[in-house]
């Protein structure tokens, strides 16, 4: 039973990975492939922040440099395969993420030591500096980073493994499925190792570490390298997926994305970043089809999570799961219902307000058009609706809060 408990998540996720293509259409697959990349990226970020307590603003540097390593390797494979000789001629594209890993880890190894002296704000600032420098620096060396147009390549070269031609997104999916599963497993395993435990210890109380025989810096440094490598691995996956790498992939925006995904999903819980990666990626690539304020909504979701759900979405899931094991679902269900209702009401109010402002400032509103609604920002009616929704949401909120105090 306990054994099953331990393996259930892996069996299930494996099954999901195997069944997904059967139930999804073409366009979904390409988004799923991106999600896979982001899952690894976000988890690698959480190795730093969630597990090791190091807030980084330059994580994309490792992702991007890993990506570049992989794409250059891909070109090498192409050339070697054309010539038919050399090491790269026998190197399958399938294994390129390993090159990415090596790249990312190497960079972390080179720059990491001075960074890891302290965690907290100092670390955040120094990684910010690193991020800015790398992002600006890439524009200076076109021969390596391909300047604005980046470095592009073709993944259909070299030895083919498992009959994966990697021609269509559908092929790439299997590549992604393998690597996302392997990477997640690896990072989960890492948390179970002595070093993984020590990284948690360093996060909780660096001062005590020395008195159990560990200089915090060493532990941080090793975690930093591992995390940089994993980010590079994600970069390698990206290189194969897009077949092009541009300087944007190491920009501060990309670093922010990692932070966004990890925090929204939940830093404390291992699978949190996975949830975050899925949500944020979907929002990023689909939301803008329906509204022009897409970016704003992503930001608001992030703010809401930081303010009201510090443990992220995964925190909520855990909450439910524990209630389930504790057989308290029935007791808590009504409160949850009320809470959900209030949140939905507040969200609707917010969305309506935003779209109205958009209508006022831009004359048209995409969301209204897609919904086929006739919005008129000049009339008081919609604004009244906003107020009403706000009131309802707030009322319900107070209600649930009261019932909480009553029970506890």
């Amino acid at each position, binding site marked *: 039973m306990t054994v099953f408990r331990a393996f259930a998540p892996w069996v299930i996720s494996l099954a999901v990975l195997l069944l997904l293509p059967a139930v999804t259409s073409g366009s979904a697959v390409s988004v799923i492939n991106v999600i896979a990349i982001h899952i690894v990226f976000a988890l690698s970020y959480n190795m730093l922040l969630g597990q090791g307590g190091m807030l980084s603003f330059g994580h994309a540097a490792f992702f991007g440099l890993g990506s570049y390593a992989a794409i250059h390797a891909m070109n090498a494979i192409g050339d070697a395969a054309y010539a038919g000789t050399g090491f790269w001629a026998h190197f399958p594209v399938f294994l390129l993420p390993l090159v990415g890993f090596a790249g990312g880890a190497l960079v972390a190894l080179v720059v990491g030591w001075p960074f890891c002296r302290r965690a907290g704000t100092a670390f955040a600032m120094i990684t910010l500096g690193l991020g800015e420098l790398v992002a600006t620096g890439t524009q200076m060396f076109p021969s390596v980073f391909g300047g604005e147009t980046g470095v592009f390549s073709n993944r259909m070269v070299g030895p083919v493994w498992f009959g994966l031609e990697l021609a269509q997104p559908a092929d790439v999916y299997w590549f992604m499925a393998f690597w996302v599963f392997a990477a997640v497993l690896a990072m989960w395993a890492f948390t179970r190792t*002595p070093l993984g435990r020590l990284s*948690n*210890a360093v996060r*909780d109380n660096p001062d005590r*570490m020395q008195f159990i025989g560990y*200089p915090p810096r*060493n532990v941080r440094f090793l975690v930093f390298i*591992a995390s940089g490598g994993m980010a590079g691995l994600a970069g390698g996956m990206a290189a194969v997926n897009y077949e092009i790498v541009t300087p944007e992939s190491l920009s501060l925006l990309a670093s922010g994305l990692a932070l966004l995904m990890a925090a929204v999903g939940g830093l404390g819980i291992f699978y949190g970043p996975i949830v975050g990666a899925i949500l944020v990626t979907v929002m990023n690539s689909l939301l803008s089809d329906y509204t022009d304020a897409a970016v704003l909504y992503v930001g608001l979701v992030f703010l809401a999570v930081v303010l009201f759900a510090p443990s992220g979405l995964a925190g909520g899931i855990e909450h439910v799961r524990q209630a389930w094991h504790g057989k308290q679902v029935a007791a808590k269900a009504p409160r949850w219902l009320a809470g959900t209702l209030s949140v939905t009401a507040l969200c609707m109010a917010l969305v309506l307000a935003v779209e109205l402002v958009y209508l006022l400032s831009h004359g048209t509103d995409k969301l209204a058009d897609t919904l086929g609604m006739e919005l008129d920002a000049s009339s008081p009616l919609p604004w009244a609706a906003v107020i009403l929704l706000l009131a309802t949401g707030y009322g319900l909120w107070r209600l649930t809060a009261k019932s909480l105090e009553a029970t506890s």
Partner: protein
Amino acid sequence: MSAALSIRDLTKNFGPAEVIRGVNLDVRQGEIHAVIGPNGAGKSTFFNLISGALRASGGDILLHGERINGLAPQDIQQRGLARSFQVSNVFDNLSVFENLRCACFKNSGAGYVFWRAATGMGGANRRAEEVLDMIGLRALRDAPAGALPYASQRALEIGMTIAGDAGVVLLDEPTAGMSNTETGQAIELIRQVGADRTLMIVEHDMGVVFELADRISVLVYGEIVATGTPEAIRNDPRVKEAYLGEEAA
């Protein structure tokens, strides 16, 4: 009898303020040695100097005849001297067991292992389980350390200190802020700990001190005014005047 820990002319000053002024002290192998003294006598500073948290301004600290002053805390810990803290200083989000196990890794050769599961590190796990029983927290094995009741946290604190199998252990006010029953348990624990170790304790609770200590040193304003058996100390006039007298007043 050989000295496990001997301090020679130890001095420490923060700017002009001289907190430790030429302390000389020998802690014998296997004894329980208590350091007492009025508040602000510099007891905590004294411990911080020995354990490497602070750097001495002058003098020597010898562990089994080997100079350890100037070494980093982790190196001192590696040479077999561990210390506990006055305020509980544990890894809040880790379980009690994890706390102990992390404290065991280094000395059970788990180092910075990242290729094997922590559960596979036989030595560390065995040791952690032992200590767990020793400090009587078996029931709270998987509770997060941050959520423990105060007394249990103190016990865990001691457990983490001894987990690394250090030959010389410094305990900083192990029973501070405990109820009588809790204190009783603590004393038991400390006895056990002291059975096969050299122990140095800073303690305010005179009851505890006189019950546990083989020898006592009195630290007053950065100087050892007296060292001896509990009886000797009880009857030492200087101590009376400098310390107990003050207590009476």
